[in-house]
């Protein structure tokens, strides 16, 4: 177990190092930072001063290690576009994306798991077969088309929900939340649903498959033989055994949710990391793009670590195997 975690931790560091090399290369080989910052009318003295400040005269390897040091201490430089420290920009945007992804995750689990359990328990019902077929549509409709349909229906035609932004947010130190105001919650509904639909279908399919496996085990047969009702068997006995894999997969889903959030944010003009990234791309804001790479890597690496941890806790075989390996080696 310990060895397994150590292995994953080493992997995480490796990923971050690889991405940092990419981000550094991007930030240092593309374009002329001096021209980007100072414009064309700068005097040679200005340029020289800036070159020194940006350490452009040091050898590349030295600059890479200095860059690593900057990263570790959170000095990400300034964005060309916004003219502000990148770390501030990221800090402002992260809560929006995290809240959106969390809301979608909760939706997909809360709706997807019962659907899957129901489908596994009653595989022959017409409604179940219908749902399973239509789940293909849920997976197939691109997120942005779904977003357009939602806005057209619920904002423009019915006027029920806001079509853009986060509404009112409440700030605590470094975090801003839309969960605590009416307009914040209303603004969250459509983007969260839009992001969740595809995942609901996936979670439902997964829950169904897991559930069908568990229902075939002796343990459940025994419970049924004891005369427990179907409902009690399905939900309290069988479901419990399927939850852990579902939670694990949810972690992975969170990663996918964040990836698709880029699209949803663009459609709903959600002020999160996705819109920031797209803005950086369209302005070729290189420091911001390279900082975004690092931030994304850090995020996905952390998600994977947590998932691995859950997985290690959930899967006793892994625990035993690594212990045996530990003892043997």
């Amino acid at each position, binding site marked *: 177990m310990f060895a397994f975690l150590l292995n994953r931790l080493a*992997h995480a560091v*490796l*990923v971050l190092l*690889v991405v940092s090399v990419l981000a550094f290369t*991007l930030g240092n080989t*593309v374009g002329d930072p001096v021209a980007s910052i100072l414009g064309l009318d700068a005097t040679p003295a200005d340029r020289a001063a800036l070159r020194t400040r940006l350490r452009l005269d040091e050898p590349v390897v030295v600059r890479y290690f200095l860059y690593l040091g900057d990263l570790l201490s959170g000095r990400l430089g300034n964005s060309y576009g916004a003219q502000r420290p990148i770390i501030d920009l990221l800090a402002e945007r992260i809560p929006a994306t995290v809240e959106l992804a969390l809301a979608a995750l909760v939706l997909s689990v809360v709706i997807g798991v019962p659907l899957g359990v129901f489908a596994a328990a009653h595989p022959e019902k017409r409604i179940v077969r219908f749902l399973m*077929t239509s789940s*293909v*549509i849920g*997976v*197939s*409709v*691109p*997120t*942005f*088309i779904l977003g*357009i349909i939602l806005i*057209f229906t619920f904002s*423009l035609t019915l006027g029920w929900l806001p079509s853009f932004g986060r509404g009112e947010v409440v700030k605590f130190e470094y975090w801003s939340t839309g969960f605590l105001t009416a307009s914040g919650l209303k603004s969250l509904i459509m983007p969260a649903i839009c992001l969740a639909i595809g995942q609901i279908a996936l979670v439902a399919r997964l829950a169904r*498959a897991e559930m069908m496996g568990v229902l075939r085990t002796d343990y459940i047969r025994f419970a049924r033989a004891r005369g427990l009702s179907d409902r009690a068997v399905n939900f309290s006995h069988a479901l419990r055994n399927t939850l852990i894999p579902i939670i694990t997969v949810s972690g992975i889903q969170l*990663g*996918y949710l*964040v*990836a*698709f959030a*880029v*699209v949803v944010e*663009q459609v709903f003009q959600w002020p999160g990391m996705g819109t920031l*990234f*797209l803005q950086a*791309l*369209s302005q*070729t804001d290189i420091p911001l*793009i390279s900082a975004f*790479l690092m931030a*994304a*890597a850090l995020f*996905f*690496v952390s998600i*994977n670590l947590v998932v691995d941890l859950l997985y290690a806790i959930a899967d006793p075989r892994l625990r035993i195997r690594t212990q045996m390996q530990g003892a043997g080696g």
Partner: protein
Amino acid sequence: MTPDMPSDGNLLARMRRHPVAGSLLATPVTLVALLALLLVVACAIFAPWIARTDPYDLATLDLLDSHLPPAFMAKGDPRFLLGTDSQGADLASLLLYGLRVSLLVGVLAVSISVTLGTIAGLISGYLGGLVDSIVMRIADIQFTFPAMMLALLIGGVSQSLLPNDKRAALAMPIVVIALGISHWPHFARLVRGAVLVERQKDYVAAAQLAGRGHLVLMFRHILPNVLNPIFVLATLDIAFAIMAEATLSFLSFGMPPTQPSLGTLIRIGYGYLYSGEWWVVVFPALTLVVLLVSINIVGDWLRDLLDPKLR
């Protein structure tokens, strides 16, 4: 071929017993999807012959024809079945060509994934040891990022860094490579797993004893045994690639308006959604959804048919 043709009832009964046809007949949805997919693919392949105009030829456009609704509507023009766009281009022709671009990108991207992934998987599974750890480590690093995110990063960053005169010309290769790279580890893992299983089997040992070379072993003996799962995964992956391409184009980091894919058409049409000119966005979106749904349904069916283990 028997000379006495069976009656219709018998044919139907025989088809039901046939594994492929039978499973198709049992699920009418799949049959419909398969037919829709064939139709759409045919449209894409024969676009230059079916389309009334060549939307890439600017000299044929007339601004006076712009903003026309579909032919079946009150103000429609019989020349333009599905209406025209803001430049007077025939939307039906644009759709056919867009479909062609979308499918082409999807197929090319998946070919790259399959080629890269198969080679990496074969080598790593067959040779094992250090090569295996390195290849799998790279795959692992890549698995840290969701494929969609990776496609966005590679496609978006390279589009944005490219000097603008190269951008339109290189749009298709960039999108294809971005999508191709983002999915190769799936195939590498699949193939490697299969190779590890096959390697244990007697026929490989026999072939090895017979003095066959590594390459021959890999490609002539092991590869044919893993083709089915590769084929199934590839089919489902085309749906992903087409969707990812449409998404990139919708975010304007994909195909340019001069060579629009369905995603580009939707991006342009989105601006007209509220103005009453619904046809410029609804038709491309519908086409894309039909395409994706039918590929996914057919892919699921293929998986059940060819490789029940993958379920």
